[in-house]
């Protein structure tokens, strides 16, 4: 029978926390950029200009058809070369974090844009017509009438996607970047306690994601009750 020995975890907590900060940093950056870029993509897909629609649809479908692991590998290949070319960095500068941030942000934007597109389409057409009748331009109608309503309905879905994204950040493992999971694996490997560290990492992810998804569910119930009257 396996003898558990959890003693290497307490001493490793500071490292694990540093790793968690990297995971959270990537998540926050990808959520913010993903929603901003995703909103633009969604508006482009719903625009009346055909080439713009095609471009946006092509972008979204391409990113949604490729595994995240592949996307990350692509960005770890391309981004360092581009960054070094543009900023004249030396070949030893560590740009793995920058590559991961760019990769996640562009990848998640494709998923966010689908959520946002559905959110925009859920706003009744009469609202756009009313805004136009009031003399608003298209940009004003979007900014002041459509998007505020769309985003209020979308908040639970956007948050759920953020939880998925937080889980996906563990895949930066493929670039040996020290996120929470990467640190847990390294500590376990170093101390010969991989079993304990992997179970610990799983438990931490579970607690965070379960608590977050319960909070989202609670919020959605409140939102539904609010909108029902």
């Amino acid at each position, binding site marked *: 029978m396996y003898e558990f020995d959890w003693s290497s975890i307490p001493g490793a907590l500071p490292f694990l926390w540093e790793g968690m900060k990297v995971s959270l940093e990537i998540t926050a950056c990808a959520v913010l950029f993903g929603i901003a870029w995703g909103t633009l993509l969604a508006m482009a897909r719903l625009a009346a200009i055909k080439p713009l629609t095609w471009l946006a649809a092509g972008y979204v479908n391409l990113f949604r*058809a490729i595994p*995240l692991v*592949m996307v990350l590998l692509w960005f770890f290949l391309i981004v360092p070369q581009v960054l070094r070319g543009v900023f004249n960095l030396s070949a030893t500068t560590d740009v793995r974090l920058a590559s991961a941030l760019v990769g996640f942000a562009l990848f998640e934007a494709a998923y966010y844009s689908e959520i946002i597109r559905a959110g925009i389409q859920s706003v009744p057409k009469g609202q756009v017509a009313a805004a136009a009748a009031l003399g608003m331009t298209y940009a004003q109608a979007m900014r002041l009438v459509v998007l505020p309503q769309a985003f209020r309905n979308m908040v639970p879905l956007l948050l759920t996607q953020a939880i998925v994204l937080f889980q996906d950040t563990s895949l930066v493992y493929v670039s040996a970047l020290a996120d929470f999971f990467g640190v847990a*694996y390294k500590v376990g490997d170093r101390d010969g306690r*991989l079993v304990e560290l*992997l179970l610990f990492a799983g438990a931490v992810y*579970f607690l965070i994601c379960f608590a977050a998804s319960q909070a989202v569910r609670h919020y959605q119930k409140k939102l539904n009750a609010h909108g029902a009257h």
Partner: protein
Amino acid sequence: MGYQWNWSIFGSTVPTGETTYLVWLLSGLQTTILLSLSAWLLALALGSLTGVLRTVPSKPLSTLASAYVELFRNIPLLVQLFIWYFVLPEILPFGLGDAFKQQLSPLTQQFLSAMLCLAFFTSARVAEQVRAGINALPRGQRAAGLALGFTLPQTYRHVLLPMAFRLIVPPLTSECLNIFKNSAVCSTIGLLELAAQGRQLVDYTAQPYESFIAITLLYLVINVVVMGLMRIVEARARVPGYLGSK
């Protein structure tokens, strides 16, 4: 940027000399397809069972099924994979773990861990869809089944599930696409599927762009084929009078 393109790289022989890089690529594709399909079948079975259990009028059973879904949905796929591959063989009782480590070849160990991991991970998502499908049916259907003298299992088998499955083909399509994409994660335990073959090609040939472009195109092809097949299923399964039907 002065990159030397060399597409003929796929035709050249690998260092050991017995085959070409193209064959490596195709064997990776084969592993990806085998892995994803076997995991998908298992995920459908496990997910259907769990989804049904979430809707039965028994508190312990539905709580158990909810716990199952929450467990597999709230831990990252990569962490689950490492637990299947590195942790379970260590802690399984009755010599099962030792048998796994000693009697199976490393390749079989990787494949089995990867398949079980993908299957359980996806089954939690399939369960949510099955539950949504059953809950989308009018309540009268269950009552009518029971009123006709069907037992609860018979009501599920003959009344609820045939309709529910037809309703959830579109979301199941996206889960099926996901399992192929998620299988790329299994390259991390050394399983030589498509993404891993791509990285190996980069290491051996130093022609990263050609390998990555080839791998990406193969994933796109898988995507298109799965979508095409599921569209046929969808067209046949569509229920007249429901949303999305013609």
